[in-house]
């Protein structure tokens, strides 16, 4: 029973990781925390669910639509909530995102209803891999998350805008003096972070066959936790943090009781952070 639970944990953890990376990108470039990230994830999940149920589109089209919607939403949040307050310190944007999170959640309740909305299953078959039954859907999710990590890495390490993002994260005034349009970098960083959250939302909706307005609460919290666990500004750290949280949760469900899953997951995190306050892969210097 160990291997299947490890795979469950890995699948769930890779989706936490996608959310966590969003926090890393936003904190890394802008030095700010958003509490509306879970709701961006929820919005992406709803768009994906609608695409599949109302418009009967294939799942990958739904995924792209959910990611695009989250991108746009992130772009707008940065414009209205963060940009006017860039010099106002940490507190005002934080409070605004808490407000935005409530507004988005309630808006979803008003527009779509508070109850669960079903999402059709895909890839229900399983395959045997090295003697273990594995669900095809889990493999699809893992492959997808892995590809997104890879694309993100190529984007950040290998492109001009990625380099500008890293430079801005390290010294935004120097980057500005070199001619970087820092506002544009912030916009893109926020939208990119949101887009990854939207992808996680669509995939979670498909994985659990349901979306609902409050789904962003726990997911946002877990993602934020994974981000801190991993070292706050390290993308590999966020991936590792997300996966560890996912795996610990699923092993707890298997070997203890499902009621303890969050307790054990956060306990492990607390212990690691006490021993290593900078997080798993955290450094003293800020980077994306």
């Amino acid at each position: 029973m160990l291997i299947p639970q490890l795979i469950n944990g890995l699948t769930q953890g890779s989706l936490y990781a996608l959310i966590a990376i969003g926090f890393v990108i936003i904190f890394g470039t802008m030095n700010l925390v958003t509490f509306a990230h879970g709701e961006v994830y929820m919005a992406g999940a709803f768009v994906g669910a609608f695409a599949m149920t109302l418009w009967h589109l294939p799942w990958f089209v739904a995924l792209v639509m959910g990611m695009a919607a989250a991108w746009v939403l992130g772009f707008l949040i940065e414009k209205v909530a963060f940009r006017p307050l860039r010099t106002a310190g940490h507190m005002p944007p934080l409070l605004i995102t808490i407000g935005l999170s409530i507004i988005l959640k309630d808006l979803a309740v008003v527009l779509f209803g508070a109850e669960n909305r079903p999402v059709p299953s895909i890839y229900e078959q399983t395959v045997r891999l090295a003697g273990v039954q594995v669900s095809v859907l889990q493999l699809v999710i893992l492959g997808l998350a892995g590809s997104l990590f890879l694309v993100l890495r190529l984007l950040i390490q290998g492109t001009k805008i990625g380099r500008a993002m890293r430079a801005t994260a390290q010294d935004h005034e120097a980057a500005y003096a070199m001619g970087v349009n820092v506002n544009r970098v912030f916009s893109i960083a926020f939208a990119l972070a949101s887009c990854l959250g939207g992808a996680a939302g669509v995939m979670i909706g498909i994985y659990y066959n349901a979306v609902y307005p409050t789904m962003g609460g726990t997911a946002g919290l877990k993602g934020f936790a994974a981000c801190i666990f991993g070292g706050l500004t390290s993308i590999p750290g966020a991936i590792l943090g997300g996966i560890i949280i996912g795996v610990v949760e699923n092993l707890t469900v298997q070997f203890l009781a499902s009621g303890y899953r969050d307790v054990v997951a956060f306990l492990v995190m607390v212990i690691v952070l006490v021993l290593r306050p900078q997080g798993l892969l955290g450094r003293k210097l800020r980077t994306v």
Partner: protein
Amino acid sequence: MLELRGVCTRYGPVQVLWEVSLTVGEGELVCLLGGNASGKSTTMKTILGLVHPVRGEVLFRGRPIHRDTPAQVVRAGIAPVLESRRIFPQLTVYENLLMGAYTRTDGPGIRQDIEAVYERFPLLRERRGQLGGTLSGGEQQMLAIARALLARPRLLVMDEPSMGLSPLFVEKTFEVIQDLNRQGIAILLVEQNANMALAIAHRGYVLQTGRIVLADTAQNLVNHPMMRKAYLEL
């Protein structure tokens, strides 16, 4: 080539520059001297478009640039060497150089210019894959200058390049500055180290609490009684 006319700059309620006027001619090496909090860095930031003056104007090659963004200023031909170097510590030496060419889109030209700065600073070629933050202070200064050159500037604006460097590297830095100037790049050198700056500059200005109080040739400034007393420690 560069002309400041009656520039006043303020940060919120605090006015830092009062009617600052200065010029840097084609191919000239001009230094801007002054003590702490005299407004040297603010003058530089105003030229670079990092802050905008409330009154007065900044002209570059006859065109007003005091409402421009830093990107536009860099494109116009002014490149910054910022105070305390401001290398991107987690970018490689090569990537730091690319950031200097950020406003450019001519790929082959950029590669050619990177090759040229590697020729000038062979150490940077050796360290091109190393993170900027791992270089010593003096090496970072060379990188900061090289990064500015990647913008293909007509004018280099340098803020305290000697600060925090060992005497050996200060000397090396000033040699490089003089060398660049001889190749035709105009330089505005903002410095506290008046001795060194006046030794290589053609002309100089002295700022005191945001006002230009002296403007003369480097030779005359060295001999000026006020300079000898206040800055030159002779």
